[in-house]
């Protein structure tokens, strides 16, 4: 099966509407960024504290705020749709307050939503060792004594059960499905423990200094990486190719960042990894097209640059669409099934792949033509390159001789 056979779309002839679209998207992204005062950084970059909480019965955002009011400033509550999990965060910047911020959030939540302990042990906190310790004596008292090893195995089975159920045991009767947990043992577990209707699944605290540092380092790393690519491409092709490729990649990054801003999504360290990934993809697309242009410059020496570039884009179109489609498929799978932690990451990939594919055709290639036309016009020639132009802006061209076109 073949999707694109000898296509001949006039991409570059219709470049203006697409360049217009690019400009509109870039402008929209920049405006959104400007209106919101820069990207919405996650606590990785701005500093703050974040707690991942699973509630058995999700309280309203107002209830959570009420439970924490007066204890922690600048609170943010984020409900994750389709998940029992919530994120509760603050962007306190003060170093000293941050030392205890996550603990304060956790403690206040436990007080407000933790249920009645009645002196029992919370089975939704602590590890297997602790649980085993709590169960040992009561089990012996109830005539179901266990060796240390068996006891630890049992406790591990219980914590593993918890692990695969979002960290939350809602009802102790659920545990009857755990192998080895016979009714008498379950009775003891019920005597000794209770399931708090809230589980803390993770906390993150980043000091503002380290946040600023991570931000600076990430931006520098990306800029240096772009610079490195520019130099390499300039070395392999010509410097204008490097510039065109880097502008295209830059265009993709800005638009993706703009989309993050438009959808009010947070930029975290994982999102930065995704941005790096899309830089890689977009660069890949651009180089494949450029390689074809360079090859065609050698064999179609009579052709003017614009039709030649157009032909090259068409020749690589099948590969561009296939590759992008396939990677988009993977990214979509990640976006749909990848869960909450990977959500920002996969969102960036989905946007980036689409924009990146588009930019290698409609941004990188036109830049080559613009530059070429600019050089021609400086020589006082017509703006459009003519077939008899002595030098096409290709690499190391000697005297141009007629060569048969390859189909």
């Amino acid at each position: 099966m073949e999707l694109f056979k000898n296509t001949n779309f006039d991409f570059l002839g219709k470049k203006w509407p697409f360049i217009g679209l690019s400009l509109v998207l870039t402008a929209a992204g920049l405006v959104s960024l400007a209106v919101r005062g820069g990207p919405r950084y996650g606590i990785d970059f701005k500093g703050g504290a974040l707690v991942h909480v699973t509630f058995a019965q999700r309280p309203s955002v107002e209830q959570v705020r009420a439970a924490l009011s007066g204890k922690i400033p600048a609170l943010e509550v984020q409900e994750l749709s389709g998940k029992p999990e919530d994120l509760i965060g603050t962007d306190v910047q003060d170093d000293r307050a941050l030392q205890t911020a996550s603990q304060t959030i956790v403690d206040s939540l436990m007080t407000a939503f933790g249920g009645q302990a009645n002196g029992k042990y919370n089975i939704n906190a602590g590890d297997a060792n602790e649980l085993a310790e709590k169960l040992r004596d009561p089990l012996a008292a109830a005539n179901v004594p266990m060796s240390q090893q068996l006891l630890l195995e049992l406790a591990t089975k219980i914590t593993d059960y918890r692990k695969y159920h979002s960290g939350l045991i809602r009802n102790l009767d659920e545990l009857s499905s755990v192998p080895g947990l016979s009714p008498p043992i379950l009775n003891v577990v019920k005597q000794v423990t209770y399931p708090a209707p809230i589980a803390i699944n993770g906390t993150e605290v980043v000091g503002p200094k380290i946040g600023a540092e991570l931000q600076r380092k990430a931006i520098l790393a990306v800029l240096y990486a772009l610079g490195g690519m520019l130099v390499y491409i300039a070395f392999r092709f010509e410097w204008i190719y490097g510039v065109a490729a880097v502008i295209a990649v830059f265009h993709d990054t800005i638009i993706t960042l703009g989309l993050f801003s438009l959808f009010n999504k947070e930029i975290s360290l994982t999102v930065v990894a995704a941005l790096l990934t899309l830089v890689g993809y977009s660069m890949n697309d651009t180089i494949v097209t450029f390689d074809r242009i360079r090859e065609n410059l050698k064999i179609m020496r009579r052709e003017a640059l614009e039709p030649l570039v157009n032909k090259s884009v068409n020749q690589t179109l099948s590969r561009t669409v296939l590759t992008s489609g396939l990677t988009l498929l993977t990214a979509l799978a990640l976006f749909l099934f990848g869960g909450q932690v990977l959500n920002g990451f996969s969102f960036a990939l989905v946007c980036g792949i689409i924009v990146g594919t588009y930019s290698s055709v409609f941004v990188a290639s036109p830049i080559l033509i613009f530059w070429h036309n600019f050089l021609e016009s400086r020589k006082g020639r017509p703006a459009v390159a003519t077939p008899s132009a002595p030098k096409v802006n290709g690499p190391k061209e000697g005297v141009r001789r007629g060569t048969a076109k390859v189909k």
Partner: protein
Amino acid sequence: MKRNIKIKIGIIVAVVLICIYGIIGLPKSKDELVANWKKNIHLGLDLSGGTQLVMAVQLQDAFKAFADNTIERLKEELKKDNVDYVTMDRNDPNKLEDADKIQVDIKGVPVGKGSAFRSVVSDRFPEWTLLAVNSNDYRLNIKTTEALKLKHDTMTQTMGTIERKINGLGLTESSVQPTGRSDAEAELLVQLPGVGDPAHVKQLLQTQAVLEWDEVKDGPFATREEALAKHGGVLPLGTKLAPTVPRGGQQSWYLISRSPVVRGTDIRDAHATQGELNHWETNFVLTQEAAKRFERYTEANINNRAAIVVDNQIISAPTIQSRISDTGRITGAATQEEAADLALNLRAGSLPASVIYQEERTVGPSLGADSIREGFRAGIAGLIAVTLFMLFYYRRSGINATLALFLNAVILIAALAYAGATLTLPGIAGIILTIGMAVDSNVLVFERIREELRAGKAVIAAVDAGFSKALLTIIDTHVTTVVSCAFLFIFGTGPVKGFAVTLVIGLIANIFTAVFVSKTIFDFELSGKRQVTALSI
């Protein structure tokens, strides 16, 4: 079959076997296979669950302590040599960056004693440079070499102490290391796999556990004011006031000696035991040298009170009933954990400088498990979709691409296992990009072969031309990405670095699979036949 195809196939089979061995070893059972997999593939804390702490060691604390020590010694030395002075003080650098700006000011040295003063400092305090502010006042600045040494020693000591404390809790897989950021020499990274709640660890690290055994000079008093009032508002020389640990809302004050009989450094061992009435207590054993001192002191002070002070709070103030030589006992712990923590802190010693937490990340086991499960599910879904499409679109040749794709994944994972690298979430991002580029390489080659076939070339020639023409493009795209990864690795921080490493390994594996392996499979398929007229592509 041609000989060089056999060699190529041999190489490929060998690589596959080495990789599989690196990932799962030589398992004899299913359990062993899983165990080997877990042993070889190190999951980062974001996937396995655990806690990561980045802390800044407040080096200025160590510098202040060093200056205080100098002041004490200098006072003694000056007394010995009959050099007078009016005041001696140090400045109070509060920021980490200002640690080496520590200064000691000595004011009011008589002009006639100037040279004697200078020689005391230059002979006995070579760590400092002396600066004459005017004819009576002097200033000491720490020497650069000495400051470097002090910083280094403080960091080493801090790391050692933290390690001892953490290991004391049985967290043996934990690690303490410098973060390695060039501009953050005082930063430490502590990783605690499997620890879902770092509060206990943090508390343990923060507790200084500076133990002293002091003589009680007077007391108890109900309040600090009462104690001061009794002594006319001025404390007797060489004494200080210390409160007891509040119990049941009650707290009393004692006047105790300033220089302790026994210090924390004199302790050889400590452990928690269950004493009378099943109360938990902490027993400690002194070093030989301290034991002799202790013996003399207790013998001379029978029926006097002593105070056991931990972190400037009196834990207990027992009456000495008999001569004690080398063991002591600290009672009053509410729980076993409290007694055990104190014992651990006494054994491990205190940190030479306080720490401030810059970053703290805890990933609960269920969150990590969710990430793995969801990442895995997404990966499999993506891989199946890609495979099905390749098989449908390129038919027989799609098998080729799929094989190369899977081999790429195997090599990548094996390389991570052999290098002992940890797999983190950004690392998975690197793997996804690798798979994307692997697919791309195959598509590039196949589309090229189709083009050549359309141009009328014979099958074998078309395959050869397809590979050789696509090779240049593949190399260009890969080298560009490797170049950018090099920069990400050099300038990036943790996660960005992890991404770069996985990606580079993946790209190298990809050149091998997409170019070498895939071509070999084509050659193998085509070599058997005399006349090849059609290619399933």
